[in-house]
């Protein structure tokens, strides 16, 4: 077995951190270790937490983690913040709310930039979930960037998806829109000490009544005040119930299969894009084609066929 992989299976934080970096940088060095660890994954329950910016996702994750640690479970956290489309840099600040676990060896937190991904996640997120799982984390929490309405990729990777809302974000029409409001396994209305909480809960509950077609399980709507730790025990309870439901209804296997499908597609996409855009012989060709398109000597579809033809031939 690959060296770094065997150290990860022993839970060594330095190796976990290192492999995450290699995977994130799309380095070929990561591949061998990733191949090895796959056969030691699958046990971690993956919780996706999404919601608008400032809804309290990081603080809620801190509360959940504290409870899971009391139960003796190990927790991995992937905290994603946006990468600037202009500079390529990122300010990763989710950790500020989680510093109480900085010296707890049972918690591993990694902050990541989106690096060009648009769905609320980051390109390497599938790898990082596998790495934390292989390192023995019982729970892996994925915190998306603060989302708008359409960033829903978290459902591809999470076993349990939690959508965090706050009171006062808009009228009832907001809740019947497509996108983020369709993906929750559990809704949480956080900051429930604010005014308007009853209305928000009522609107989400009526959405669930209309939209939830599952006869075996109705999507719960919970309220929390995470800065006061209120409602957190109930949330943990609902996550457990959802996990049991997944196992009993066989939905667990269906969802996991979808996750691996998404992961495979992502690996192929990355490799193909690298092959086309990082390969120097194509680079010159692509620049020439862009010039030709700009000068109206060529249309973009023919140009694309020309590049793809060279690969598929």
């Amino acid at each position: 077995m690959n060296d770094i992989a065997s150290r990860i299976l022993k839970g060594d934080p330095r190796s976990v951190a290192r492999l995450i970096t290699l995977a994130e940088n799309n380095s070929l060095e990561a591949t061998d270790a990733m191949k090895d660890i796959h056969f030691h994954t699958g046990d971690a329950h993956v919780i996706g937490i999404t919601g608008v910016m400032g809804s309290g996702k990081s603080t809620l994750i801190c509360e959940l983690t504290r409870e899971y640690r009391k139960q003796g479970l190990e927790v991995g956290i992937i905290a994603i913040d946006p990468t600037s489309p202009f500079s390529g840099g990122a300010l990763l600040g989710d950790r500020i709310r989680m510093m109480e676990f900085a010296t707890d060896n049972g918690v591993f937190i990694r902050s990541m930039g989106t690096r060009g991904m648009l769905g609320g996640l980051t390109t390497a997120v599938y790898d990082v979930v596998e790495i934390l799982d292989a390192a023995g984390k019982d729970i892996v929490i994925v915190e998306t960037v603060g989302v708008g309405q359409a960033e829903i990729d978290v459902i591809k990777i999470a076993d349990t998806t939690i959508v965090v809302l706050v009171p006062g974000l808009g009228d009832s029409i907001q809740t019947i829109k497509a996108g983020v409001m369709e993906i929750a396994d559990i809704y949480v209305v956080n900051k429930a000490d604010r005014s308007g909480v009853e209305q928000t809960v009522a609107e989400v509950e009526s959405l669930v009544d209309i939209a939830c077609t599952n006869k075996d399980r109705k999507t719960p709507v919970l309220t929390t005040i995470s800065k006061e730790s209120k409602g957190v025990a109930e949330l943990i309870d609902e996550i457990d119930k959802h996990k049991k439901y997944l196992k009993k209804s066989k939905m667990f296997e269906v969802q996991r299969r979808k996750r691996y499908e998404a992961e495979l597609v992502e690996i192929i996409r990355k490799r193909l894009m690298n092959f086309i855009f990082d390969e120097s012989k194509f680079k010159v060709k692509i620049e020439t084609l862009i010039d030709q398109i700009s000068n109206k000597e060529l249309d973009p579809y023919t140009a694309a066929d020309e590049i793809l033809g060279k690969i598929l031939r």
Partner: protein
Amino acid sequence: MERKIRVLIAKPGLDGHDRGAKIVARALRDAGMEVVYTGLHQTADMIVKTAVQEDVDVIGLSLLSGAHMTLFMDVTRLLKGKDMEDVLVVGGGVIPEEDIPTLKKAGIAGVFGPGTHIEEIVDFIRKNVKR
């Protein structure tokens, strides 16, 4: 794919002045780096464990309480113990001139006092990052 420089900006000790730390964090972000900010009141142990998990290339310490001789050096000492000497450590804040040689000897590669231009810090990191 281009490798991004990852930086941890940390506030060790008890002072609550993080304006400088935030300005530096923002400037490094604008220079294309990924910057993890820890918030206030960190111990050296917290900073080093965070640096391990985040696998950063650079640690930037900001301190205005006067405890830099102890706390900055605690960080470099712990880094050695974790086999993390290849992390570039820089410091900033209110630091008297006469302390700088001792800090440099202890592994704080760059010390940036009040009035430092942001570009100077960015350049220093780009030139001296070890991995």
